């Protein structure tokens, strides 16, 4: 990924972006004064392209493309350390969450395999009403073409009787399906355009 060219910030400024992020997250991003507490608290900074403090600044500068294609957004684990320590009471983790949703809408998810894991998780919920752990892993593994992920854990878990072979089914799965349908429709209208299916196979890597 290309780093943002600081000299071109003015040209690439999208003044709608900060408003959109603030609306989606319910947070006042303008209040960030770059103290760096969030970055210092974040245990994932080592894996980020832009530390979270810079993400906040880039939002203020209206750098839509740079922010929405950033690796950081999809590597944030939502652990709440940044939110807990922000002196301006900005729910930074909520801002990151809102950005994740925006990348889905803009189709610029930087970590398709993580999205694939989330999607398979949701597919499991949609199908059974609950997450079927034993079924989720092999499906995910096939989808990202890493068939042996966590294979080493299997013998021990089998011995401990921790692997279940049948999903627990919620009786009222109709209601669960309805929740998925309606929220999908709501999102369509919010994004103002067709939103990528959450459970499509588009993200195969």
């Amino acid at each position: 990924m290309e780093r943002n060219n600081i000299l071109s910030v003015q040209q690439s400024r999208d003044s709608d972006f900060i408003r959109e992020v603030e609306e989606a997250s319910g947070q006042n991003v303008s209040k960030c004064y770059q103290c760096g507490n969030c970055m210092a608290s974040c245990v994932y900074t080592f894996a980020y392209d832009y530390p979270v403090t810079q993400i906040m600044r880039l939002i203020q500068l209206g750098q839509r493309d740079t922010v929405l294609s950033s690796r950081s957004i999809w590597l944030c684990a939502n652990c709440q350390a940044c939110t807990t320590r922000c002196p301006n009471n900005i729910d930074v983790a909520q801002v990151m969450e809102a950005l994740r949703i925006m990348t889905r809408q803009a189709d610029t998810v930087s970590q398709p395999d993580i999205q694939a894991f989330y999607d398979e998780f949701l597919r499991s919920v949609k199908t059974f009403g609950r997450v079927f752990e034993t079924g989720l892993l092999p499906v995910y593994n096939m989808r990202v073409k890493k068939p042996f992920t966590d294979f080493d854990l299997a013998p021990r878990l089998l011995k401990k009787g921790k692997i279940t072979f049948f999903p627990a089914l919620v009786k009222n799965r109709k209601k669960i399906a309805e929740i998925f349908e309606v929220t999908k429709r709501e999102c369509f209208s919010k994004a103002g355009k067709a939103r990528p299916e959450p459970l499509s196979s588009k993200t195969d890597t």
Partner: protein
Amino acid sequence: MKRVAYYKGCSLEGLATEYDRSTRLVCEAFGIELVEIHDWNCCGSSPAHSYDPLLSSALAGRNLAIAADQGCDVVMTPCPGCLKSLKGAQETCEDPSKRKAFVDLVGRDVDGMKTISLLQLLYEEVGPEAIKKAVKRPLSGHVLIPYYGCLLTRPADRAKFDDPENPISLDRLIEATGATAPDFPFKTECCGATYGVTRNEFVGRLSGRILDMASQLGGEAIVVACPLCQQNLDMRQDQINKFAKRDFHLPVPYISQVIGLSLGISPKKLGLDKLCVSPDVLLEDRAGDEKRVQEQAG
């Protein structure tokens, strides 16, 4: 007898069955009636939240609505991930701009419902004093590390329990069993959360640090109250050892198992044999030679 709706969540039905079992036994011992939410569904966890906040709130909210229909006003969940979703659903219902969409989808409001963690239930409803009095098999002489993980007390205005930076409830509960709980600097550091599958090296790094600090403090076990933390630290401990080129061997029991043990409930019933790293060290009776251990600790 206190009546509390019980939302166990998907983990406690799969990889964390021992958390479910021990939770039920400990609650029973203290006269708390757990009413399992009828036909409960998954709360959606982080995947739902990162797709659409309303999806998350509606999935979690359906469970609150059923609990309300069952005549409960307190919902307890042992899983901090579920806790966050359930509390989020409550907030959505109370937010005037989202209330209609929520009620339309869930079928009713969930006003006045209170969602708490197992930790909060044990700390506030039972309390360290009552546990201390009920202890039959004190864990004196054992050094147990209290590890909360990131979500149990955070974000503060949603959790509304204990301190977000330096929580003490788990420390006090461990001490009530007679064991020693050292001041653990990584109490609320993230263990790597859901990245066990997708970014295994993150868990190696982050959970590795937690195991390292726990052993530096002389911990014999890390006590947790979250199924995800438990899986990362226990089930993945071999993977972490491989990644960090270390040789950790720290059992990671749930707080409900530790309290259960001190109450004299059998290890088998509490599902201690389900843990990947053997917790046999906890079964050593050291109540008699507490003094010797204190001397060793210097």
